[in-house]
């Protein structure tokens, strides 16, 4: 009987999530620089080279968002951004270029590559190369705050459950640690 109830709860959970499981990416008011993957389906390679060049030109940082089209937590975060765009967009725009990497839950760490210039690295190697502790596990969504040389401005958490309120999103933008 308990197993039945647990199964029922899981089914309810999936039903609860499914309406929100169509993530469309960062909302338009944030003027995201959308980066589509290349090399699909063998691998999903996201090239940050152009975004970094633009960051240098505009003297800004990168707010790199890796979302998955079928990820409910991504959809939730994107909805949060949309609902609070009026407040948040000026803060993003002041210092950041928002980069939207479009992936899918089926894209695992082994198939996800990040390219900077001539160097393309699989997820875990890229994380190790920039000193990010999240090398062990790819979590959707993921956010990186990068300087113009693709160096992390601070260690970000896996997922984004800890910055889905306006004050906490602003904490992140201010690099509060």
């Amino acid at each position, binding site marked *: *009987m*308990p*197993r039945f*109830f*647990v199964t029922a*709860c*899981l089914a*309810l*959970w999936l039903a*609860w999530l499914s309406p929100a499981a169509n993530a469309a990416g960062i909302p338009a008011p944030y003027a995201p620089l959308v980066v589509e993957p290349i090399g699909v389906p063998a691998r999903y390679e996201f090239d940050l080279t152009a975004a970094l060049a633009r960051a240098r030109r505009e003297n800004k940082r990168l707010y790199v968002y890796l979302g998955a089209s079928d990820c409910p937590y991504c959809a939730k975060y994107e909805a*949060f951004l949309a609902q609070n765009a009026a407040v948040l967009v000026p803060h993003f725009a002041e210092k950041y270029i928002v980069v939207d990497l479009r992936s899918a839950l089926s894209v695992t760490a082994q198939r996800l590559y990040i390219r900077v210039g001539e160097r393309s690295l699989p997820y875990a190697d890229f994380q190790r190369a920039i000193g*990010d*502790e*999240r090398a*062990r*596990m790819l979590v959707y969504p993921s956010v990186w705050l990068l300087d113009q040389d693709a160096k992390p401005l601070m*260690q*970000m*958490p*896996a997922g984004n*459950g*800890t*910055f*889905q*309120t*306006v*004050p*906490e999103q602003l*904490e992140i933008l201010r690099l*509060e*640690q």
Partner: protein
Amino acid sequence: MRRLNFIGRVLGLAAAGLVPIAVTPRAHAAPGGLPAPAGHADSSPEWDNLREKLFQARPVDATPGTVQIIAPLRAAYGASVPVKIVSKLAQTPELYVKRIYLLVDKNPSPLAAVLDLTTDVGQADFETRLRVDEYSHVRVVAELSNGRLHTDSRYVKTSGGCSAPPNREALNLIGKTLLKVPGPVAMNQPTAAEVTVIHPNDTGFELNSVTVMFIPAHFVRSIKVSFAERPIFDAELDFSISENPTLRFNFVPHGQGTLKAEVEDTKDGRWVGTLAVG
């Protein structure tokens, strides 16, 4: 009993983020249902309760200057939050840090570690990694040899640290105890060292996704470190310490000797790690 088991399971699933549970909004809830903002130095109902149980009516001094805890506001993973305890006091026979308590207010078992130190630690600084289950203060209380208590705290924003799936890739190595002295050995001076026990440190709150059963609690409960047969520190630990428990510490070598760590876990597993020094 079966009903209780079921409730426990559902609550566990909720803790793992698998089942949404509607929570009655409370006046202090922040938008989005997250806990209200808290200052690093704030108290909490859990801390008020713990302080009374651990220290009764003894004063606990939160004035900066004796002990400090360093932890990030947000860590990469809730199951592995790096913390560093820094003592501002030299370990002299006249006055030294005798005991350190490390706490996570809102964890299911808040007392993560109790460390009994000798003056052979040299400098009572420690580093480890903690599981932090939800937005919570992490605290250190240093008990000095004169009986006084000093504390410091940091507020950490994370969740799921106690229910995150453990790394089970090296179960064949369980108990392997590794000692390391990363830098040069300084005779008669505090020398940095590190002990790591390969161990999943199961909390009892992690769900086996195949069986939908909880993995029983199984964690390292004690690490005793000595050098040349002289005790350095004894650590009583709980599952709030991350998997593969690691402690970075100092010790004062007075000559050549063997650094030794004796480890016990909750299933009476016993292991010893050694390292020749000097």
